């Protein structure tokens, strides 16, 4: 091994490479010493970065915090729409609305927010550039999921606090909370994958428009603030198959009515999660 071979050896101990470099002195710190950081460190760093940027983004906060909170407060305080039985008191309306708004939170962060930000990252070449970094693509997606999970958790805490302040008293106790989590996980995976599918196939502007349109339509058509039974029967049968509607209705069964975990809904959401993940993995384009 010659001195110059030492320099390019990634396994060479620190410092030695610089000593052996022919031009030690200014610039010797550039002596090659490549290598990826340990995977957990990369994923943690990437998750932290993605989360920071998500929380820093104004429009994103409008979508994830302001709109769901406003809807919850407004529709609870004022009797605007028919929320079914018990809709004549604030507590009754909150009992109906809170599960729907929690579902909306998942839709806003996992689907709409993620679709828009990923769509523009793709358009600006961020995904391409990261593709040339040591971070594997699956690790990037893992980091994105972690960032969605952290944001969603903050959102759920905030929205539950607002709901409690409005007099929410969810049914079901600890078992109800556990059942709600069992519903939330596959729904988040499904909506997240659908958001990535959209971001990875459409142009960024089209994603922006479509993701916002879907968000607004599903506020009203996804069982979030309007009970699905208010729709004509045939339409309601179709709508209740959508992941958001399935999630809001499922959460409502558990947290409003105190019913046991609806396994049919869990199966439906899991089906969505599997299909959407497969489609995203198949069709996502990085450039």
């Amino acid at each position, binding site marked *: 091994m010659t001195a110059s071979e030492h320099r*390019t050896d990634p396994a060479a101990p*620190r410092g030695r490479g610089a000593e052996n*470099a022919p031009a030690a002195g*200014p610039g010797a710190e*550039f002596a090659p010493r*490549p290598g990826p*950081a340990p995977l957990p460190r990369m994923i943690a760093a*990437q998750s932290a970065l993605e989360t920071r940027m998500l929380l820093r983004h104004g429009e994103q906060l409008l979508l994830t915090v302001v709109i769901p909170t406003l809807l919850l407060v407004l529709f609870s305080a004022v009797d605007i729409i028919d929320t079914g039985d018990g809709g004549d008191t604030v507590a009754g309306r909150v009992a109906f609305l809170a599960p729907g708004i929690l579902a909306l939170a998942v839709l806003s962060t996992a689907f709409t927010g993620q679709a828009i930000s990923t769509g523009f990252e793709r358009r600006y070449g*961020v995904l391409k550039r990261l593709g*040339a970094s040591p971070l594997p693509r699956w690790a990037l997606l893992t980091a994105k999921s972690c960032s969605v999970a952290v944001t969603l958790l903050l959102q759920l805490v905030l929205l539950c606090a607002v709901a409690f302040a409005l007099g929410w008293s969810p049914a079901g106790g600890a078992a109800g909370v556990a059942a709600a989590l069992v519903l939330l996980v596959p729904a988040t995976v499904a909506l997240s994958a659908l958001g990535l599918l959209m971001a990875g196939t459409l142009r960024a502007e089209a994603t922006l428009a479509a993701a916002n349109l879907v968000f607004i339509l599903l506020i009203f058509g996804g069982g979030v603030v309007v009970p699905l039974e208010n729709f004509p029967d045939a339409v309601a049968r179709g709508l209740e198959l959508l992941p958001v509607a399935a999630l809001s209705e499922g959460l409502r069964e558990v947290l409003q009515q105190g019913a046991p975990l609806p396994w049919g809904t869990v199966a439906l959401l899991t089906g969505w999660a599997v299909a959407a993940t497969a489609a995203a993995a198949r069709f996502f384009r990085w450039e």
Partner: protein
Amino acid sequence: MRSEPAVAVTGLVKRYGDTTAVDGLDLTAERGAVTAVLGPNGAGKTTTVETCEGFRTADGGDVRVLGLDPARDGAALRPRIGVMLQSGGVYPTVRAMEMLRHTARLHAHPLDPEELGERLGLHSCGRTPYRRLSGGQQQRLALALAVVGRPELVFLDEPTAGLDPQARHATWELIRALRAAGVAVVLTTHLMDEAEELADHVAVVDVGRVIAAGSPAALCGGHDDVLRFEGRPGLDLASLDAALPPGARAEESPAGHYCVTGAGGPALLAAVTAWCAAHDVLADRITTRRHSLEDVFLDLTGRKLRP
């Protein structure tokens, strides 16, 4: 294994639909050297570099980067190379130094991002979101991101496009430091002075092929030097020609402006000044010019504007 070149491309072909962007291109880049891929816009420079980086798959030919196939062994290759894209590649809302620190964290033994940021003048705009950085600041950040992981090989796609003179020189200094430290640098440029200033090896690319390759000196060699001076009109050119090295000749156009062309640079200058001294001519505004890479480039690719 270690003595193999950092980049070895032979017969690369890349088509986009009916257009052949790269048409049998050969390129070799050595470790500890700067290789410039020089060519007009649309010559296939970026396609070639992006194939080496693993962003595109070749339609033909063989591509070896650090002994690996970028299309197949991307995962093993990526941590060892640094990439500077021509534009973009950074989150619009991320702050300049935040992105640099983050990228450092993805590597096992990165450079100190603070020192690197200092060196490239990124600290003054360290808290500015990427989309509000000037074009030059974005370029410098992209360069910093490419080298922070201490790669063996860096690809720089038009690294000084749009930079002011100070930033350009800071970039050149950094590239020289990389070479001195044993890093292989492959850069694309359409700036002749950049290639002449930095490169150990230049590959001139046009319409998807390498039309000339070698050191800047070798590419510029074999051409006549040009010496100009001013003096009183109507000097005896026949006498001057006789005093010049073989093959060189003098012309007067317009009156009082003399142009001497011929091989042999220093000897040519000595012959002209000796003749002037002997004939009591005070030569004014003497200038000499070697054949530049720009002349070579224009000779090879033609002087017409491209469609």
